[in-house]
């Protein structure tokens, strides 16, 4: 490995990125656009879900619960009806996505058990919204129950401190659930952006040399295959890391997602993931000698599994067993899991040993394959 040749290669590649408007667009604008589109796409969907109410009891307690729904930004309580038939009609005609049925014995059961026995009917035609609205509704109801319980205990003269811990833990978990969509999905979007940008950029790099006829000259020089690979990927690695930093800043400062982990663990995992993505992009570029074809295949191989099978938006534990088994082969699954844990739980790299190992093994294998992929002959 000659540093002189490596530097020459990297420098040339870097100049080309900076001079190529398309590469610049992919490197700089695409991460921002993806973050904004996907980030907002997710949270906008889940706001102002139209709600119909069938309040069989009509008590002070039931009104108090409904007020919680009215106060929530996620729900828009449209109407109160007086029969299941009306609810069904409303859902069938798409006037509401969610219906709340408060039973005749709501207050009594609430007092006896401490839980609000509410029936929630969800329009399941739109799977994603259904899941989200179910989660939100559960959160609102659980918080309401917890508050009622809390007040009740207080009135009974029970020592609050003793049971407070119990209840407040409950409320906190639900509180997180309340913001589920954005906080859970945005770390996954970071993975998506990395996969997209990394694979697109690198898939062009070798194909471009073939297409423009510059490859033959390159091959006739003493540069070795691994120098070509490393020299070409170093600039894209730096671009990828910069994009990761950009995504991190946007997710925290723009979208307000909590970042509880350390920067070191974030960038370490991102580096591993980038090695995998860049390696794959490079191999595709070597195999498919034209830019259009290479970028299409790169998207297919990286973006598709990352968006569908990584668990970034569609929870893996809700997938059929066969599909779930496949996700273990999807490298982005590990990255998404790690990212979510770093963001939301703030755990370090050590706690994610299994996932880190899987990602590292992937990086090593792909890295090795990538060095082998490029041959210095024309046939």
């Amino acid at each position, binding site marked *: 490995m000659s540093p002189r040749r490596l530097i020459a290669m990297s*420098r040339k590649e870097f100049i*080309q990125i900076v001079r190529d408007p398309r590469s610049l667009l992919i490197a700089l604008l695409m991460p921002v656009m993806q973050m904004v589109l996907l980030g907002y796409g997710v949270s906008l969907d889940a706001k102002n879900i139209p709600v119909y109410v069938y309040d069989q009891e009509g008590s002070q307690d039931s009104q108090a619960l409904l007020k919680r729904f009215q106060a929530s930004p996620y729900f828009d309580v449209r109407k109160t009806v007086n029969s299941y038939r009306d609810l069904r009609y409303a859902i069938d005609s798409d006037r509401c996505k969610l219906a709340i049925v408060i039973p005749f014995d709501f207050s009594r059961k609430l007092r006896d058990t401490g839980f609000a026995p509410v029936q929630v009917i969800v329009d399941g035609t739109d799977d994603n919204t259904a899941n989200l609205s179910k989660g939100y509704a559960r959160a609102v109801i659980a918080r309401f129950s917890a508050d009622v319980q809390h007040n009740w205990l207080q009135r009974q003269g029970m020592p609050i401190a003793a049971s407070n811990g119990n209840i407040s833990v409950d409320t906190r978990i639900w509180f997180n659930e309340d913001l589920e969509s954005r906080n859970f999905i945005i770390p996954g979007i970071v993975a998506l952006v990395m996969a997209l940008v990394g694979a697109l950029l690198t898939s062009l790099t070798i194909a471009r040399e073939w297409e*423009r006829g510059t490859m033959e000259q390159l091959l006739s020089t003493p540069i070795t295959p691994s120098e070509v690979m490393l020299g070409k990927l170093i600039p894209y690695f730096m671009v990828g890391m910069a994009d990761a930093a950009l995504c991190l800043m946007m997710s925290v400062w723009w979208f307000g997602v909590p970042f509880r982990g350390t920067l070191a663990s974030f960038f370490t995992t991102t580096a591993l993931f980038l090695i995998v993505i860049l390696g794959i992009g490079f191999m595709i570029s070597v195999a498919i000698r034209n830019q259009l074809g290479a970028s299409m295949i790169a998207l297919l191989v990286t973006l598709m599994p990352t968006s569908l099978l990584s668990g970034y938006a569609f929870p893996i534990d809700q997938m059929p067993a066969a599909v779930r088994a496949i996700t273990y082969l999807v490298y982005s699954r590990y990255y998404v899991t790690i990212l979510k844990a770093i963001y939301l739980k703030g755990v370090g790299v050590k706690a994610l040993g299994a996932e880190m190992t899987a990602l590292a093994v992937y990086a090593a294998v792909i890295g090795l394959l990538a060095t082998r992929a490029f041959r210095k002959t024309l046939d």
Partner: protein
Amino acid sequence: MPNDGNISVRVDGLVKRFGSFTAVDRVSFSAYRGEILGFLGPNGAGKSTVIRILCGLLRPSEGSVIVAGVDVGKDPEGVRHHIGYMSQKFSLYNDLEVSENLRFFAGLYGVDRGIAGDRIREAISLAGLQGHEHDLTGTLAGGWKQRLALGCALLHRPEILFLDEPTSGVDPMSRRQFWDLIHGMSGRGVTVFVSTHYMDEAEYCDRLVLMNRGRVVAMGTPPELRHLVKKGALLLAKCEPLGTALQILQGSPGVAEAAVFGNSLHVRVEQAEDALVTLPAMLESRGVKCVSLKPIEASLEDVFVQLAGEQSAVRGGPDR
């Protein structure tokens, strides 16, 4: 003949197959230090394929290829330090500046940092690009691009230079300048391989390898090759209409071969004196007007037509 110590390239029984197609068929030749060896032949003759094999870019199917003492079939990488290569298609980076291209290749060839600056300046002056160091390479005219590519291929001072049709699509002025550079190289002991379509350029070479359909048809110095045609005589005929004249002449007794060259015919005959009398008469009798008929000196193109045995092989001059 120079002695063996001076051989810089030795090719023996070289065969290259692409699938079932044989692009290079049992080619053997040697090149000596400081020599300009020209590769001549029509499209698809196998010139580029031979050059690519010599550069280690393609693996030979059979035969031995020794370049600068390296067995290219076994060690294609080993030859790279010794050679400079200019591919048939322009292959520098159009989106890089002139000096950036040079710096890039100086890096790839591992030219010492201490001397790289001087080498780059030399390459720029060789290409005549002073003052254009920061122009984008894509904006240069053809002749400059080719000279820049030559400059790049010379940065590491290779012993052997492979130039695959370096002057195609370049104006005549620039072609002359380019050949001056090639002669300069050879004067410094660099062995130069040049492939070309232009017959007039063949005359600038020390030795020629004539190729057709993957085979070597003839080899030798330009005078040696011209001498091959001296058996018999060559006549230049201007006739009207040309096509009919060609048809008639090709079948006539005493005519070995007839081919179109520009707007006239080259006719190879066994005996000039007889032909000068009989041919005009015969042509006139079949309704062809014979404007003029005279003996001429054979050019390399005639050699080619004769040796390749097919007139479709080479069309004279620059039009490809």
